[in-house]
């Protein structure tokens, strides 16, 4: 079966000007590989500021000018060119952005949600549809006339979610949907995603909130220092974490308050500190010789994947 979304070896780097107009190449994502199927929720878990939002921008073709994108992003098996992205975005693939800042402050909500229309007839059609979906998400007609700054946190969330669903997308990419929200709203938001999944929509959830990921994701991709180092199934995050593969994932799991709050020494390397070898080498408690000099590839174990020399390719 074709994957809905297939991201292969994507890397994103920026040209930066440093002192005296010298230039350097800043790699933010070095190797990101993941896939999402229809009716599946895949969470990409990484710390704030690690650059995973850029993945969302890359998929939609809205990276800044000085960004350098390499690798393949495939939709339904077809590699997306910039032109392809421009065609399907807002239509088959929809983005749920981080905050209400992504809405035009000088435009009313309804106008923004509807987007561009060719003529009055089309506008009326879209308006009915918009009203319908907004109703489903408990947004009454008065919201249509509001400006973004008038929305409360929860309302803003619902507006962003329902706006994304206006076009009946097949793939939804949610960029950090939970920060800054109270528990009730978080639960509500996560339910929206569950509903989408039930409707057969594929969801890529980019977040640093591990609880949210564990709550609704089918599989979880762990993002570390610019690499995806493991894609694990949700059910493996149980017990003592023995089914988790990468040492970092295990450490992450053990660090949860419910599991003992164990902390591992060290911190994630910052952007621009390029290592040779495995990025986790300094913090690993059982490294091999080879881990210092060579970078491990992402090994495909079917539904799961891991980037560690301790594992061998299956089949």
């Amino acid at each position, binding site marked *: 079966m074709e994957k809905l979304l297939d991201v292969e070896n994507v890397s994103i780097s920026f040209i930066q000007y440093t002192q005296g107009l010298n230039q350097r190449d800043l790699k933010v994502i070095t190797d990101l590989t993941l896939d999402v199927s229809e009716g599946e929720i895949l969470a990409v878990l990484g710390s704030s500021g690690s650059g995973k939002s850029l993945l969302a921008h890359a998929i939609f073709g*809205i990276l800044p000018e000085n960004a350098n994108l390499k690798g393949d992003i495939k939709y339904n098996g077809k590699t997306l060119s910039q032109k392809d992205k421009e065609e399907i*975005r807002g*239509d088959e693939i929809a983005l749920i*952005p981080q905050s209400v800042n*992504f809405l035009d*402050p*000088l*435009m009313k909500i309804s106008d923004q949600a509807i987007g561009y229309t060719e003529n009055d007839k089309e506008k009326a059609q879209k308006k009915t549809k918009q009203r319908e979906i907004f109703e489903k998400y408990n947004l009454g007609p008065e919201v249509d006339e509001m*400006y973004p700054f008038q929305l409360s946190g929860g309302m803003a969330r619902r507006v962003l979610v329902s706006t994304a669903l206006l076009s009946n997308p097949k793939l939804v990419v949610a960029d950090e949907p939970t920060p800054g929200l109270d528990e009730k709203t978080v639960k509500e938001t996560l339910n929206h995603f569950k509903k989408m999944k039930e409707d057969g929509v594929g969801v890529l959830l980019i977040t640093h909130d591990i609880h949210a990921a564990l709550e609704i994701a089918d599989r979880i991709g762990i993002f570390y220092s610019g690499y995806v180092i493991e894609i694990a199934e949700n059910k493996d995050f149980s017990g003592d974490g023995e089914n988790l593969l990468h040492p970092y994932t295990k450490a992450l799991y053990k660090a949860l308050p419910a599991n003992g709050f164990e902390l591992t020494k060290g911190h994630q390397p910052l952007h621009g500190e390029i290592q040779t070898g495995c990025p986790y080498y300094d913090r690993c408690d059982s490294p091999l010789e080879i881990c210092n000099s060579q970078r491990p590839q992402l090994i495909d174990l079917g539904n799961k994947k891991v980037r560690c020399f301790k594992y061998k390719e299956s089949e």
Partner: protein
Amino acid sequence: MINYAKFAKFLGKKALRLIILLIFVILISFILIDMSPINPVKTYISNVVVSQEQVASLEAYWGVNEPITTKMANWLGNILQGNLGTSLIYRVPVIDVIKERFTASLALMLSSWAFSGILGFLLGTIAGFKKDTIVDKIIKVYCYALQSAPTFWIALIMLMVFSVYLGWFPTGLGVPIGTLSENVSFWDWLNRLILPMVTLSIIGVAQIALFTRDKLIEEMNSDYFLFAKSRGESGWNLIKRHGIRNILLPAITLQFLGFSELFGGAVLVEQIFTYPGIGQAAVSAGLRNDVPLLLGIVIFSAIFVYCGNLIADIIYNFVDPRIKESEEDG
């Protein structure tokens, strides 16, 4: 939408500031003129042969040798009665000269202001939209070159090309020489306004175009612009929906802040096209030491510039919804 009480208070404060400002302007102008080796009596006399006693009595009459404070007090007293004195060059009340000249200049300044504003905005939008393409580069080069070009030189070139070489327009004056004012037709007047106006516009375009371009590019990098793009909005419609509206107010504000430059430009342009505006009057007054007229013009120009800044302030404080909403929230 506008809180009237707040607005009234705002205007009141601004009026007060204007008065204080004008007082200082007058003070400085007076001091400067007093410092100068000008003797207004000499100007008044010009080339008429006059005896020493007559000079002395004129000087006494005008209080030329009195201390500056007395002079200023007298002059201020006159102003409050609406009397700005009499122009030495034109021999009519200063206020009449200013009225006539200012109207002419206003026609020139406002028309080119509007024209350059609209044209500049258009050019800037196109340049921003088509960033880094040939169109953008041409517009940028044009604007940079224009900003570096001396205003009066551009005016000279325009005069040369269009009046002298092509003969399309008259080379000077506001109306044909010798025609009575009743007989001056609208077209005559327009004919003489066009070239100075176009010249002034061409020069004014540069600043607003570059500003608009920069602002549009800034908008195009904003989060909501990116989001709109991710939803499939594109091209000119994208700019129309999310770009233009957001930069319109800043651009208009900038235009109003440019009154000072506008006036300066008008001074030069009027001189070259011998357009009988207040700029030309200022130059004559300066060259021929017509103190009352010069002072009067300085005051009027200060008021003119102040009005422009005031309007920009009003727009900024009361019209821009983004500023308003942050005040309502916070």
